[in-house]
């Protein structure tokens, strides 16, 4: 059994044990399905792998735990969505995902009074990104931003500016990540 890790626009091979299976112009990034319980190290190892690929190719990460019988089954599963995936790869090419979470400083996440500030922060950050997506979570704000590689520094400066302007709001920005939140079409 294999695990499908990601989809790329480039079928050229990469270092073992990861294989890239060519499928209609796309490349399916697969490895032998891991056994046993997952731990943090395994997740970080997988993350490094995708970041390495992202240096040279457009990459769409696949949800954790996606397992198929073999390369042929993977190619078959992808075939009907080839055009949609190719379009998604174009949308993320040259960009990375940055995560931002906001909580009320010194208070449990979700305290009232800061909702409007969090909204304003999100709007300002979204203006620096190609696209943005808000997620469910206990924080006042939990969002992902698709940022051009060249704009990452400017984005981080904006986060720091917001932090100084609103000391009551705790902001956390992490990244860069593969574009996990931007694999679907624009209607997300």
């Amino acid at each position, binding site marked *: 059994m294999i695990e499908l890790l990601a989809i790329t626009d480039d079928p050229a091979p990469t270092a073992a044990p990861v294989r890239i299976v060519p499928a209609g112009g796309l490349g399916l990034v697969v490895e032998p399905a891991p056994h046993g*319980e*997952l731990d*943090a190290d395994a997740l*970080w190892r997988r993350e*490094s792998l995708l970041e390495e690929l992202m240096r040279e190719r457009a990459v769409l990460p696949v949800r*954790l*735990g*996606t*397992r198929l019988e073999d390369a042929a089954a993977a190619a078959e599963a992808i075939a009907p*969505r080839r055009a949609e995936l190719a379009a998604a790869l174009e949308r993320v090419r040259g960009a990375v995902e*940055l995560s931002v*979470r906001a*909580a*009320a*400083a*010194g208070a*449990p*996440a979700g305290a009232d009074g800061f909702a409007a500030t969090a909204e304003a922060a999100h709007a300002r950050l979204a203006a620096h990104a190609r696209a943005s997506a808000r997620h469910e979570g*206990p*924080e006042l704000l939990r969002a992902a931003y698709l940022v051009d590689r060249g704009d*990452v520094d400017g984005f*981080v400066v904006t*986060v*720091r500016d917001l*932090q*100084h302007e609103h*000391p009551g709001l*705790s*902001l*956390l*920005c*992490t*990244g860069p*990540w593969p574009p996990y939140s931007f694999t679907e079409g624009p209607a997300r």
Partner: protein
Amino acid sequence: MNGKVLAGPLDGDLDPFARPMPNLSNALSRRIDADPESVEQGLAQLVLTIVELLRQLMERQALRRIDGGGLTEEQVERLGATFMALDQRMEELREQFGLTAEDLNLDLGPLGRLL
């Protein structure tokens, strides 16, 4: 592992953002463990999942037929009553095997969630 934190709170307190890691096993491609002590429950989960899938497919098809017109009032009523009865029966079966609706709620990817 290189640092992923690009910007953090002024007071350096990351506690509001820390959280225990969820159990990853549950999130992976669904594994139905038919272990020797509870083979019946594992198999029941698989069977009920497939039954639920088929029930949903039938219900969707019935709705398409109803919306499309061409059915008598009596037929529409019978379809409605049948699916209500099926729904109830599914609930009884789930209870019998100690399964929740969530246990059968599989993520079918592009097809959406089952329930």
